[in-house]
């Protein structure tokens, strides 16, 4: 036996230790335990550097550079936004795969599957909230990544093509997020996507727009076909496109190196790949520790936010027959909705966004200024900031606060008890709605402080609209709360006013509220009231 002489020579303990070290080295793809120890103690590598081996041996590491320029490893140079975008894509893939287990993309099943996921699957709500939070963060961070690249001028030669793939990735990210919007099949999803796809209809000429719309929806209106198409886009096609462009993008990043801070190189030069030996920071261990701890910290942050502050909304089941008041696109398309309010559908919905996209892609070719230094790029930076401000203003115009006010009584009730979502009345809940009839002219006061607050708001809101709207005079409201059934209250809002013709007008809206209903679908501190045992009667 070959083992025996080895054993005799080294002794039993040493043989076991060597075998263990061998296994360790295989797992780490080439780094023995002693070298890991030296890494952790911050000792310099020997020569030849044994810490480069995993880059050639391990598949996952072969795409990472072996060392970086010290200047670009500073957190404040890149803010790790590209890494974060990539990481969020993996978070979305994993949480998305888990969500797919309980989901069937048909109008009959989709919404009930959501409810089942929330009420019957352990950690189902956490997965859904994480997926939603990740999607919104991904849009934010990909955008921030682009803004950072713009501000440091990193799109300039030789990185024009990297910028191009980045723009594609931004667009794919937006569409990924948007296509996922429809899948819960609630009112929010249905109408946001109806608005979104109706923009495609504006593509000139008419026959093209209609065909594009038909292809996206699978029918003149969104239904079973549209849901299936958006599902396939969301889980298969767009992730594949993103995957492809990610690797092209990342290959270009590694190929050219991350651009240095502009004041560290001569104007017009690109020395990112010529790293002097004394400025090298090796991936193992320094960059790996940095990236790993950063991503772990970010994950913890996401879990904490999801657990305590963030809920993915779920409204009533999609109803093609009733458009909810103040339907909005997802927040990252508010600017488009704002544009649509002030311009023609074809211009604002298709031509302007198209021009914007082409402009974005063309930036590296339009900006012939070779310098990446801030003080040499005043025009570029100022126009970028102006564009950002315009986007924010347009986004604000896209919200219901701008130029879509319904009739005063509709708005008053919507403010206190919206058709969808929570609103202050559902927030205080069943227990804080004492039965009775409350007329704002009598300035009623009840024993319930929170309900008094609602009554006060009702009164104040009527008074505010009376002042603002000349057609809304001598208005008063009557709020009645009656017991409809065991554990079910009927809340009737009646608003009376005198129209300009002098006639008495009336608006009535009725809602029901069940004792067990928890309206969580708002961003804010989650209500853990269910943790406490129910109060003994």
């Amino acid at each position: 036996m070959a083992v025996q002489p080895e054993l005799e020579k080294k002794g039993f303990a040493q043989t076991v230790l060597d075998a263990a070290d061998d296994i360790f080295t295989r797992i780490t793809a080439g780094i023995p335990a002693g070298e890991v120890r030296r890494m952790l103690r911050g000792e310099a590598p020997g020569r030849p550097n044994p810490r480069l081996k995993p880059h050639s041996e391990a598949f996952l590491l072969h795409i990472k550079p072996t060392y970086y320029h010290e200047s670009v490893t500073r957190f404040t140079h890149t803010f790790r936004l590209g890494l974060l975008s990539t990481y969020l894509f993996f978070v979305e893939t994993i949480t998305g795969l888990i969500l797919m287990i309980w989901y069937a993309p048909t109008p009959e099943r989709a919404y009930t599957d959501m409810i089942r996921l929330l009420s019957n699957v352990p950690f189902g709500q956490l997965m859904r909230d994480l997926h939603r939070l990740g999607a919104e963060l991904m849009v934010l961070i990909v955008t921030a990544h682009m803004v950072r690249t713009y501000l440091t001028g990193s799109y300039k030669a030789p990185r024009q093509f990297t910028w191009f793939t980045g723009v594609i990735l931004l667009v794919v990210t937006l569409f990924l997020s948007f296509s996922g919007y429809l899948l819960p099949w609630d009112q929010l999803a249905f109408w946001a996507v109806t608005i979104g796809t109706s923009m495609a209809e504006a593509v000139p000429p008419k026959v093209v727009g209609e065909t594009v719309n038909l292809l996206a929806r699978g029918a003149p209106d969104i239904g079973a076909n549209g849901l299936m198409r958006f599902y396939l886009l969301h889980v298969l096609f767009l992730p594949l496109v993103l995957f492809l462009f990610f690797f092209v993008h990342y290959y270009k990043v590694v190929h050219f190196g991350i651009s240095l801070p502009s004041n560290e190189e001569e104007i017009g030069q690109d020395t990112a790949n010529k790293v002097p030996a004394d400025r090298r920071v090796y991936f193992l261990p320094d960059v790996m520790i940095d990236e790993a701890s950063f991503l772990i910290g970010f994950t913890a942050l996401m879990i904490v936010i999801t657990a305590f502050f963030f809920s993915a909304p779920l409204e009533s089941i999609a109803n093609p027959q009733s458009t909810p008041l103040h339907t909005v696109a997802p927040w990252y398309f508010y600017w488009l909705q704002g544009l649509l309010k002030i311009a023609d559908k074809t211009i604002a919905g298709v031509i302007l966004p198209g021009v914007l996209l082409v402009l974005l892609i063309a930036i590296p070719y339009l900006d012939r200024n070779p310098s990446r230094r801030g003080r040499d790029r005043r025009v570029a930076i100022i126009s970028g900031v102006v564009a950002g401000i315009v986007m924010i203003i347009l986004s604000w115009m896209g919200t219901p606060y701008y130029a879509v006010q319904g009739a005063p009584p509709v708005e008053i009730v919507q403010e206190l008890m919206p058709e969808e979502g929570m609103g202050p009345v559902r927030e205080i809940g069943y227990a804080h709605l004492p039965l009775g009839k409350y007329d704002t002219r009598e300035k009623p006061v009840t024993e319930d402080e929170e309900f008094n607050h609602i009554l006060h708001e009702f009164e104040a809101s009527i008074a505010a609209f009376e002042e603002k709207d000349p057609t809304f005079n001598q208005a008063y409201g009557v709020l009645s709360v009656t017991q409809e059934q065991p554990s079910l209250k009927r809340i009737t809002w009646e608003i009376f006013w005198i129209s300009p013709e002098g006639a008495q007008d009336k608006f009535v809206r009725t809602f029901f509220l069940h004792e067990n209903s928890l309206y969580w679908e708002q961003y804010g501190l989650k209500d853990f009231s269910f943790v406490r045992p129910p109060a003994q009667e």
Partner: protein
Amino acid sequence: MKRPWYSFLYVRSPLVKIGLGIVAVMVSIAVLLFLGVIEDRRMAAQTANWDGRAIEKGAEIYANNCYTCHGPDGKGLPGVAPALHSKYFFTQRLKDVGWTGSLHDYVASTVAAGRPSKVKSQWAQMMPTWSQRFGGPLRDDQVNNVTAFVLNWEADALTQGTPDNPDPWQPFQDAPSKAMAEDGSAPVAEAPVEPTGPRSPQELFAGANGMGCSGCHNLDLPQTADSRGPVGPNMANLYETAGTRVPGEDAATYIHNSIVAPNAYISEGYMAGIMPQNFAERMTEEEINGLVQWLLDPNRQR
């Protein structure tokens, strides 16, 4: 080199990074453990939440479609539609019809597919089919919601049978009740309460002890070519049209005859035999006359 104001974000020490990473892992584990511990209660609360919301949606559907026949509080309208908010309905009905499924299935299938049979029924109207599967307006989830709403009366219906909370016990004629007073499954038959005087027309038309007219006749809409009552004619413009229907009958005679002998003259487009034939026995002559006057009053008080 001037450092930007945000340079404090750049942590250099790998040990600090590792430390922060370990803290982050521990925080994540703690939060996930906390969520795991309360997960059962969260799921229970969410289940109750979505059940509650189904009842809210069902209440809206009931208020828009069902209450005209089954009554605003679900206690039915005599001669129009049975009480659902009733101890009989929750305890005896399934046994009487020999339904082996659950009450939820029974209600949901009745809402969805209606009650087409009129054999031996004391109800004036047929239950229409409500589900889109059978030509009605409601989706499956809406049928389930309205079923949840109806079943939510259970807690109150089971306490019925006291003087404060009487049971509108309504055995159906289509399935003679097997419940018996002796074994306690049916209320002891009470002596019918003698009316203390003539009932008001409002009470007769729409009241809980009335004739159930409001189930089929709408007082707020006029009967015109583009506004027709689906089961019985609308009555907002009755004072104008009543005298023109049958030659030789003035308005009051026409309405009186239509109440005591509904089949004598059927308005065009409606079916004979829908309106109960026994109103002459269930109301006194004085009450019928009061009702006729009230129906003919253009400014009638509701």
